[in-house]
């Protein structure tokens, strides 16, 4: 059973967002890391890069596969998790904590409100499995 914390927002591409004031912290969900398998490489953007909502900001690679990751919100990158360069496995072991990927200064209010709640995301992953 995948861990889906109540206080986060979720995308249908399996990213999560934690809102901290005007900043969105973004990572991939427990369900996503479990589907990918052992993460061996994470490619992240540079601080200052701009992304529109649902634009790809990087990629996550497991032994077997490459997956793009998408920013659920629009804005500028104000921080990246540099630790993932040497410890990509943090995405597997702590997807909602040390496995975070980017911090985005949100430029469009309300985008997070259209994301899925924890309960909605749980239903979504169940439906996807079937």
């Amino acid at each position, binding site marked *: 059973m995948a861990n889906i914390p109540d206080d986060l927002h979720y995308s249908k591409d399996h990213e999560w967002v934690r809102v901290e004031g005007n900043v969105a912290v973004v990572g991939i969900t427990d369900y996503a890391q479990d589907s990918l398998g052992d993460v061996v*490489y994470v490619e992240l953007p540079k601080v200052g890069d701009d992304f529109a909502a649902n634009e790809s900001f990087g990629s996550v690679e497991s*032994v*077997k596969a490459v997956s793009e990751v998408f920013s659920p919100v629009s804005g500028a990158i104000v921080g990246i998790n540099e630790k993932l360069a040497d410890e990509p496995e943090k995405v597997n072991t702590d997807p909602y904590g040390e496995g975070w990927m980017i911090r985005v200064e949100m430029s469009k209010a309300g985008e997070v409100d259209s994301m899925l709640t924890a309960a909605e995301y749980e239903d979504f992953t169940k439906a996807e499995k079937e």
Partner: protein
Amino acid sequence: MGGRMVDFGGWDMPVQYPAGTIEEHLRTRNHAGLFDVSHMGEIDVRGADAIALVNYLVSNDASKLIDGQAQYSALTTAEGTVVDDLLVYRFAADHLLLVVNAGTTEKDWDWITSHKLDGAAQFKNVSADYCQLALQGPDALGILAKLTAVPLGDIKYYHFMEGTVDSIPAIVSRTGYTGEDGFEVYAAADKAEQIWNKLLDAGNFGSDTGVLPCGLAARNTLRLEAGMALYGHEIDESSTLLEANLGWICKLNKGEFIGREALAKQKESGVRKRLVGFEVTERGIARDDQEVVINGERVGKVTSGSPAPFLKKNIGMAYVPFQSATEGQEIQIDVRGKLVGARIVKIPFYKRGQQY
């Protein structure tokens, strides 16, 4: 078992078990891994001319086999390219077993039967009769020994014996596809589950140093580190055995076989492209089918690219023009639009018993 399943040549196969590909890979290198490879195809050949007929179809010299020996070989086209790679097992002078790839079993069968072979031997597709379990790694012998009276230590590499495993009649072959010591066990198809479970028990599955069930992903990374070809990647009907570095299974003087003339000619004139191994030297992971760039020119393609869990490097194999196929040659791989540096290195990447 909780394996993540995928369709592989019409078979439902586990990509990985819950331990995950990296752990499965490392456990096989350090202790033991168990692979269900029952999908492999088997073709039985019986009759006075079994060896002569097979020898006309394959590139290696089956007449050199003794009873109880296996040989890596290839079914070749007239152009010297590869219909399939296979193992040829000799049970007796009039009895061989060909073990072929799952996805190509039907093609191989059609290929073999399309040739009007002149001689006394019957070919029979017996793929559905057999299961095949591969127990690989330094602890494989000790684990299998608990279930069989076959003197495993007396079986040399690429040899086999008939006997029983957990009282089930079986062929025990000292072969594998991981670069480790180990065995492949063939038995009646309906005995797969029993032998599988017994091997897991005998191998202390569940302990940190026990055997682990391994999926297709680990099978692929293990064989890639060991520099072994995978049909449909390094070898297929678009590259010859010589281009694929498989000259050692081309016995051009053994007598006539399909592809002999083309291979002899190519050996004389030289190959234009060659399969090489490479190590990625910058950040990034090369993947299958990505293009190889040398001095700004797109000159070849990656046949297999992946992280190498034991070597902790990103490695791959690729076809490059012959003049560039030298150790130390700097190349680039087009990784989704970004050129990533790599260097041609010796194959195999991993050799058992060496320090890394």
